[in-house]
């Protein structure tokens, strides 16, 4: 219990730091959201009126504290560009990115676990090396390039989906999944490659241990040995990896959302940075940070659960 409380406190501290860093960044980079809204030919007095209306004439420290107190109350502020509450804008898009991330995670697990075990079982063989080489190749491509190749291959050549034909998840859920399947795959593949490598290495190590020999001697089938015993132990370092994977999926989704034209949180982040929309950017960054830190926390708890021998500070 104490552990949980401590972790939650560190969560708050991390979020605070993130918000400070973001605020600091915004005060350093040039670019004024008001000029972007009103255009380059706007009169100076009109600019001043809008700045005051948006609270941009406050001193930086004041502005940060005012935003922070609002955030603590659940008031995420109003987007400078769209003049609508930030909460609504994010609420519309967060589910999209979450579905994308979830699907990527599921695909990563679905692809890498069987492959990892298979490669461990057949390690040294041609199949193992071929799979290893493919995984290497996938890992060596910049993610935007992988995305573009995917759009070309699955969208234009194989015509499995229509690039740009995003379907709203509330309108037609099955077709929505059908559309985000491919961007999810583009995110999942490089991450799968990393997991396969780890799992394979870990499983190979486990296959050499005593309890495996014992199990085999007792007549257990190879499948049972692998999936029943080896996997349970080999998966532990991999689960630790999943915390990092979640962070990777979120940062990967930013570029993938651009390439596949998906109206998620990642695209909103990029466009709101470009329009210097401080309330929107701050809240988005906080959301992302929250999810990443929570994922790490979940991973740590899961590890404790699976193997109480591992003591996590």
């Amino acid at each position, binding site marked *: 219990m104490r552990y949980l409380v401590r972790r939650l406190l560190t969560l708050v501290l991390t979020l605070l730091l993130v918000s400070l860093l973001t605020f600091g960044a915004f005060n350093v*980079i*040039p*670019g*004024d*959201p008001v*000029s*972007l*809204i*009103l*255009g*380059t*030919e*706007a*009169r100076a*007095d*009109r600019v001043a009126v809008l700045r005051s209306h948006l609270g941009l004439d406050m001193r930086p420290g004041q502005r940060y504290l005012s935003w922070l107190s609002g955030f603590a109350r659940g008031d995420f502020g109003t987007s400078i*560009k*769209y*003049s*609508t509450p930030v909460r609504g*804008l994010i609420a519309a898009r967060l589910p999209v990115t979450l579905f994308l991330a979830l699907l990527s995670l599921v695909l990563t697990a679905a692809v890498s676990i069987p492959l990892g075990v298979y490669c461990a079982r057949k390690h040294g063989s041609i199949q193992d090396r071929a799979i290893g080489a493919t995984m290497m190749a996938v890992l060596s491509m910049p993610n935007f390039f992988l995305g*573009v190749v995917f*759009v*070309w291959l699955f*969208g*234009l050549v194989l015509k499995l989906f*229509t*690039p*740009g*034909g995003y379907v709203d998840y509330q309108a037609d859920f099955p077709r929505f999944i059908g559309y985000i399947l491919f961007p999810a795959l583009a995110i999942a593949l490089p991450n799968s490659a990393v997991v396969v490598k780890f799992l394979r290495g870990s499983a190979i190590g486990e296959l050499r241990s005593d309890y495996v020999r014992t199990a085999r001697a007792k007549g257990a089938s190879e499948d049972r040995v692998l999936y029943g015993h080896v996997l349970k132990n080999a998966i532990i370092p991999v689960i630790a990896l999943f915390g990092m994977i979640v962070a990777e999926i979120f940062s990967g989704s930013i570029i993938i*959302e*651009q*390439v*596949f*034209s998906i*109206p998620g949180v990642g*695209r*909103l982040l*990029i*466009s709101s940075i*470009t*329009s*210097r929309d401080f309330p929107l950017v701050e809240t988005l960054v906080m959301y992302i940070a929250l999810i990443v830190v929570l994922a790490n926390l979940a991973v740590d708890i899961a590890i404790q659960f699976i193997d109480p021998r591992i003591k996590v500070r």
Partner: protein
Amino acid sequence: MAKKKALVQFFFLLFTAVALAAAPSIKNGGSIVVAVATEPDHLDPYQATAADTRAILFNIFEGLVKPDADGNLVPAVAASLPTISSDFTTYTFTVRKGIKFHNGKAVTAADVKYSLETAASTKFPGLSAIKSVEAVGADKVKITLTAPESDFLPYLTVAIVPALYADENTAPIGTGPFAFDSFTPQVQLVLKKNASYWQKDLPRLDKVTFKLESDSNASILDLQAGSVDFASIADNAVAQQLKGSYAIQASNSNAVQQLDLNQSFKPFADARVRKALSYAIDPDEIINTVNFGVGTRVGSPVIPGLKAFYDSNLTYAYKKDLDKAKKLLADAGYASGLKFTITVPSNYKVHVDTAQVIVAELQAIGVQADIDQVDWPTWISKVYQGKDYQATIISVDGANLSPKSFLGRYVTGDSGNFFNYSNKDFDALFAQAGKEPDAKKRIELYKKAQRLLSSDAANVYIQDIAGINVLKRGLSGYTNYPLFVTDVSTIYYAK
């Protein structure tokens, strides 16, 4: 003799029959998806200032007058062109009979008065010259100016909206061919047909969706997939890949791409240096390399589309001459070489690519130019407002169809003079032209002003970048304007 006449008649009929058969028959209805690079910043016409936004809002709103495809102003909300008093201070309009807003309400003089006054209060360009607007009866409007102005008509393209309507930014209402249907931020803007539009037969389509593309690459992918029906692309080579399913049309972007030289940077204050750069940089090579040969070279900050005022003699004023360039540099004292930085906005690939070509071209005369990419907000803040740069590449357009909006920047101290240009002779010429009542003399004065800028090599003028419009086969009717507008009312599905 009769036989010949019969023959002529026969061929005439044949010709007509063939022409009729060849002309696509117009099918009314249908919907299209238009790809746009930036979404509307505001739906309220008095707040929207981004050129891209105004281009789309052109379909929802109309002013007393509006531009046609040739750049001429034709009456829209007004029934006919105004009666102008002989001293050029009073413009009187009659509201078009039967014209209605999208909400069914008839347009009255009171709406026009409200619109002009509201727009003027938001400091809409040019309307500060209005002294008063009077509604005379239900359908006549009298506009009185503070000073005589022969060229006030272009400013009356400002949108006419229903009086006291407060929701223009969320549910805009105008008189245009399309009415607002819905707006999903960052995704799309949907317009539907205005069934009671005053121009008969228009619009042809029932629905138009302006889809926001995250970047040009996403746009191209969507076009390849066929999920977009119309788009404006910068790259001719890319457009050529779409030839199979799209008709490709080149048009002018109606802005002048130029290498702007900040005269607060010492070398650029010297006209010889500016001239040297002009002789070394070859717009033809840029058009060929960056735009695959499609583009209109210019020698002046005025667009070729402003046919009456554009001085085409200036286009080759600085024909490529490396020896002249080197000599001018040496005269100015930079024989050992010159170094400067070109700041370009990273979101405009065409300007970044042009910068790369210019860097290569300038190497030939011993000038080393470095490129510094910045993002758009940084460009506006640092270069345009802060004037903190040495050279930059950007396309400069005019807010409306008058030479004033293209040349006004060069006046000393003008708010748009982000390159610190100052020339007393030019200031005098410009002021004189503004006051000149005779149209012919005015044209000549503006041309003289352009010649002055050219001989002074104020900036290096490159081209009017060609916009490549791609329209899916089966669609027809898109017309180009010399202004930044995307008029979708004339597009139709051919049978």
